[in-house]
């Protein structure tokens, strides 16, 4: 079983030297933590898919330019600012 995640809390209302404590996350914080992990995985997948699609367009545009074939508007957008 994995260790319970912990947080470091610095309570500035306390005297120096007595402010810092490391304590386990609450059940609510763990639920938020798990939700962030799922969202981050989805975001990363979306980012990778978008990057792959852009690269495919660039590759296709380059091949057509070399061959002298007309580009689609979408392909041209990858070359023209």
């Amino acid at each position: 079983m994995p260790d319970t995640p912990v947080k470091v809390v610095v309570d500035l209302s306390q005297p120096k030297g007595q402010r810092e404590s490391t304590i386990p996350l609450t059940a609510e914080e763990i639920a938020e933590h798990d939700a962030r992990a799922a969202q981050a995985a989805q975001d990363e997948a979306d980012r990778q898919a978008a990057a792959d699609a852009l690269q495919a367009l660039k590759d296709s545009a380059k091949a057509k330019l070399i061959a002298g074939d007309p580009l689609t508007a979408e392909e041209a957008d990858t070359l023209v600012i």
Partner: protein
Amino acid sequence: MSFELVEKIEVGSGGVSQIEFTGIPQDADELVVFFSLRGVTATNAYGSFMYFNGETSSANVDYRIGYGVNDLENVTYAADANYYNLLGIQGGANYDDTFGSCILNFKNYTASNSDDPVIIHQGGASAETASGQYCSYGIGNYKGGAISSFKIVTSNASNYAQYSTAHLYKLTYA
């Protein structure tokens, strides 16, 4: 003008999932925070989410972020969330195990003069390879009153690695 270190922390072995400051003194004009952060995952450089006063309402947080990642153009980023997004400020294994850096400023954090606190940041993570740079800058407002506490968590729910640090300063004009 005075610039005083309020507190600093360094993450110990094993890492932590959150870094939280509470009981923030309300006797200064601005707060300045320096973060040096590294996540423990091998994925791209993620950022951190910053929550104020345990805020749960997205109505109380607004921000606009500009960022650049590797060779992609800068784009603005906006979201309706209950946190401020410190995009891309933590390093990771894919960033040569470097530490990301961030300077963050809370202006009017005591919500005085009928104004809301303003949050400004700049930061990023940079690896030694050409495909390993991430930078961001942004500004936001917190509408939930004076900032008396904040916490940061990694946006991908990893731990902050050992030797990650946070230094909190208070700035007084007079």
